[in-house]
């Protein structure tokens, strides 16, 4: 039943030009960044060859690409999640889901899964770019797997925050701007108190600090747990919010 809602959500995304244009624009920009980074590598290749334990191709291209991808998707994901509930509320189609034999949890998880499927497509398309290098070079596949796992977790977190913001309002633009604001805030939390040595709890909450290790090839279960906690928190909040729709007036 979750899957029914998810697939409908996924297919509906492609019925509007929004999903297509997002895929195209993201691919274009990241393609450009990818190629320019590759250029840098080619430029310094002679010097790198001469160095002992020089950084490899993957190490030069990938963290940079994924770091940029995260920032771009921070802008893009709110646009995808904004319509999830807000639009249904505005068009009064929520009644269809509410009167069907579905629990709120199923509705929320279905919608979330639909967005995740789309983000997976996006992720797959980004992954194709570095993978294309396999034709002519060898890659550090471990580093790549770690990086993409990090990006996947990050995007799942973005989507959960976006979904929650969408349950709060009936205006899609309000949902988009508030999820963008919330995500950006989570991102830049580590800017505060950079001078203080260690134990800065604000910096600890920052999304960025839990994403960076993945890009360096470090898989820390604490970082993964952070993302999972973030996702679960916002999903639970979304369920509660939709339930309140029924209870409130």
């Amino acid at each position, binding site marked *: 039943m979750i899957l029914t809602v998810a697939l409908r959500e996924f297919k509906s995304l492609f019925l509007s030009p929004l999903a297509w244009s997002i895929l195209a624009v993201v691919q274009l920009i990241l393609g450009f960044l990818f190629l320019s980074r590759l250029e840098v590598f080619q430029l310094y290749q002679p010097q790198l060859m001469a160095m002992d334990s020089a950084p490899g191709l993957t190490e030069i291209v990938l963290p940079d690409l994924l770091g940029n991808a995260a920032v771009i998707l921070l802008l893009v994901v709110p646009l995808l999640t904004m319509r999830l509930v807000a639009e249904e509320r505005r068009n009064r189609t929520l009644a269809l889901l509410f009167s069907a034999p*579905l629990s709120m949890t199923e509705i929320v998880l279905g919608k979330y899964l639909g967005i995740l499927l789309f983000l997976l497509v996006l992720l797959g398309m980004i992954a194709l770019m570095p993978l294309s290098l396999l034709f002519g070079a060898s890659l550090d596949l471990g580093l790549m797997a770690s990086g993409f796992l990090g990006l996947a977790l990050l995007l799942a977190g973005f989507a959960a925050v976006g979904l929650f913001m969408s349950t709060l309002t009936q205006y899609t633009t309000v949902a988009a701007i508030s999820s963008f604001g919330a995500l950006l805030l989570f991102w830049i939390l580590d800017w505060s108190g950079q001078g203080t040595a260690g134990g800065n709890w604000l910096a600890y909450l920052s999304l960025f600090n839990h994403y960076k290790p993945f890009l360096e090839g470090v898989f820390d279960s604490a970082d993964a747990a952070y993302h999972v906690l973030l996702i679960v928190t916002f999903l639970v909040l979304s369920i509660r919010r939709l339930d309140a729709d029924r209870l409130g007036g």
Partner: protein
Amino acid sequence: MSHNTLVEIRNLSRFYGALQAVRDVSFTIRQGEVLGFLGPNGAGKTTTMQIISGNLAPSGGSVTIAGHDLLEDPRAAKSQIGYLPEQPPLYRELTVDEYLDYCAALNHVPRAQRLQARDNAKERCGLHGVGRRLIGNLSKGFQQRVGIAQAIIHLPPVVILDEPTVGLDPIQIREIRALIRELGKEHGVILSTHILPEVQATCDRVQIINKGELVLNESIEGLEHHMKSASLTVAFHRPPAQESLEKLPGVKSVRPEKDGRMHIFHEAEQNPTDIILRLAVDKNWGLYEIRPGRLSLEQIFMELTTDAAADDVHAHAPAITAELTP
């Protein structure tokens, strides 16, 4: 609970903040019955229907659908209903077929039976030929039909329709009414409307709700009986004194009208028509008109829902409007 009682609503109430939109409403719906839910705007019709369909939680009371309590076992209860809200919940970017398939899946229609369920619903709502069109491009009447098709696709025992004929042209209204009658043969149907003839044309039972309270719950036959009220309208060329009519057996009161006619109210069992006729001939009153008085549904509706009447009936409970005015 009797064998074929589909919905049982007990002491339902609902607050919006301090405003009580529904107060202590109880009724039942049986299989094969179309229940008309009447009331002026803002009387609590839609709120009641939203509660029965599970879109709104009640503040108090219980709803039992086909033996399942809506609050304790919402999934089982909701699988027994089909709901068409005031504004049909349509995804404009889908085709009719895609939309109906989705609704069937949401309502747990097994995959193998979905095609048949969809064809069946389209057949009943007159939707053949538009299956591949986008819902957003359909006319209002067709959108309304898609809304009804959505509500009956899983053949629920209970169908709840909130103002299903709003915004339709007269021909479409007739078709939709015929469809509702058809549905009423096998399903239990709750139909809300503020169009009075619609109730007389389609319903088996009428409920009038005013300010959140049920003020009438009557079968259509009972209502007919109500409407044949115990009164006569008579007119004479040479009218007799009012007292001589009032003294007749069974007559309760006589009210003269401005145009010379008189209304005679009598006991329901003692119709004085015969006596009046005989006297009129004997005493040469010049009787030229006599007909039974008949209240229209509209009059009953007005009587039950106008403020004066409602305030009289519920003088013990302060009216909401009175509380709100400073």
